[in-house]
């Protein structure tokens, strides 16, 4: 990369959710639904002393990608760690449901989901969890018709029930900054002890759940620089590829066979994970 290219490379992670959605859609095509001025925000937070954000931390951006009907669901990681509450979760699930309905009517609407999220918003606990289940249902429905693209670019990463959502996507894009894992490091340390998982050891955490590690472990589909152009191009390329012959989440035989080769008497090592999954999962 020459100096000009370096200087002109626009960082994706420095953009907020709204801007990220805009740069992924065809220029000028973005139309936000239930935007901040509609003031559909959380009814649960004020009584807990938490300030509400007008869009509840989720941007629903209708528009086009390569001329075709699309919707981008962008989670604002800076707000409450991108956690899923009742309203934000419903925005994502509802939009995905409408996209699936479009497809049943012959309109090929596809969806891109930007995962910067710690999972359930604990201030709304069971409503957040229920909404995430509805997001899962909607992804599995929509991905029968169109690829569902997930992106986790950082700095928050993708955790909790939303990491399951990411793993349901047809294609998953990550950067080096991203982490993708079920349980937050603090929670594992709380439940299993610091020997099992030291939540303050950042290199350790990235070595286990960082974008690069997930890429080499065949758990994501693209590992890209933090670049608007690279990410946008990859989204378009995946959409052109179409629905995969088999979604990663459906490959239970390959995963069970791979796990059977794990020496569980030893603690997990990143290089061993790569070796086992590269052998067991690469088609």
């Amino acid at each position, binding site marked *: 990369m020459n100096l000009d290219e370096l200087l002109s490379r626009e960082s994706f992670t420095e953009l907020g959710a709204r801007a990220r959605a805009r740069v992924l859609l065809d220029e000028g095509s973005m139309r936000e639904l239930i935007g901040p001025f509609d003031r*559909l925000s959380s009814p649960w937070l004020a009584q807990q002393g938490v300030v509400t954000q007008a869009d509840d931390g989720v941007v629903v951006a209708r528009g086009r990608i390569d001329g075709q009907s699309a919707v981008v669901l962008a989670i604002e990681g800076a707000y409450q760690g991108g956690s899923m509450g009742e309203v934000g979760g419903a925005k994502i699930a509802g939009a995905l449901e409408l996209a699936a309905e479009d497809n049943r009517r012959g309109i090929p609407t596809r969806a891109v989901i930007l995962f910067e999220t710690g999972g359930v918003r604990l201030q709304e*606990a069971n409503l957040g969890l229920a909404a995430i289940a509805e997001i899962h249902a909607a992804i599995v429905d929509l991905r029968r018709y169109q690829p569902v693209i997930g992106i986790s670019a950082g700095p928050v990463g993708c955790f909790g029930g939303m990491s*399951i959502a990411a793993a349901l996507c047809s294609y998953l894009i990550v950067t080096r900054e991203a982490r993708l894992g079920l349980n937050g490091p603090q929670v594992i340390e709380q439940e299993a002890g610091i020997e099992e998982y030291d939540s303050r050891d950042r290199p350790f955490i990235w070595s286990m759940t960082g974008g690069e590690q997930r890429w080499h472990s065949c758990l994501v589909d693209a590992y890209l620089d933090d670049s608007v152009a690279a990410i946008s191009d990859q989204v378009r390329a995946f959409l052109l590829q179409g629905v995969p012959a088999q979604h990663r989440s459906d490959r239970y035989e390959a995963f069970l066979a791979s796990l059977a080769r794990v020496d569980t008497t030893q603690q997990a090592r990143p290089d061993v994970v790569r070796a086992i999954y590269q052998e067991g999962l690469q088609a």
Partner: protein
Amino acid sequence: MTNRVESSRGAAWLAALTPRGDVLPGYPAAVRVVDGELGGAPARFIAVVPDAENAFPRARKGEVGLVEGWALARAVRECMAADAAGVIRRPIVAVIDVTSQAYGRREEAYGIHQALAGAAAAYADARLAGHPVIGLIVGKAMSGALLAHGYQANRLIALDDPRVMVHAMGKAAAARVTLRSVEQLEALAETIPPMAYDIRSFDTLGILWRLLPVAQADQPGGEDLERVQACLLAALVDIRDDSTPDLSSRLGQPARQLSSQVRTRLRAGWEAHG
């Protein structure tokens, strides 16, 4: 059927609901799959149970771990495959008593998030293919474990018992993450129903289809068992009467009005006008 003392409530209810069925061989000990009957017709029952000898040390107490997630996927997809050529789509009953997802280094390293997605996708695909999927919560139904095993069901039924609970995270961890004490969280849960752990508070959220009174949740039998069996059958009828195989039946109650409102407003703005 066996008279052995079952290792968990989930195991006990699975056995009681499938008196003539055998646990299918070839599955890990923690995932019990039984081809039983519902209303006299074949149905598959699945439970995740404790396995003190689980190869993965952090998945020995009934947690849904790596292998459990993928094994659930297998149990559901094999049921789908067996029925695919015929007309009948067998019901699949998830007997739910899961303390949590498994927490550990091995689990994160090998992508437990992907394993749970495997299970969730299988249950969702089964539902979309026309299999009636029923979730029966007899004990704990926590976070990722519930998302994998039960939350994709067409209908959710729970026992009305103090040890039946649904939540996103255990209390100590939730307190740590939200920088509050457990006592503070418990106080908040008194007035904020979605934060509560008990099943009666969960019932007020409008997600459950039925909450069933039981006298002896730990020892399924007698009237309790009959009530649950009748309810499973009623759920089956309700699912078959439903025109859609989605989760929209969870949106009817007043408590979910805001979730419905979001969807209405999305629909109103979906097509560009002018």
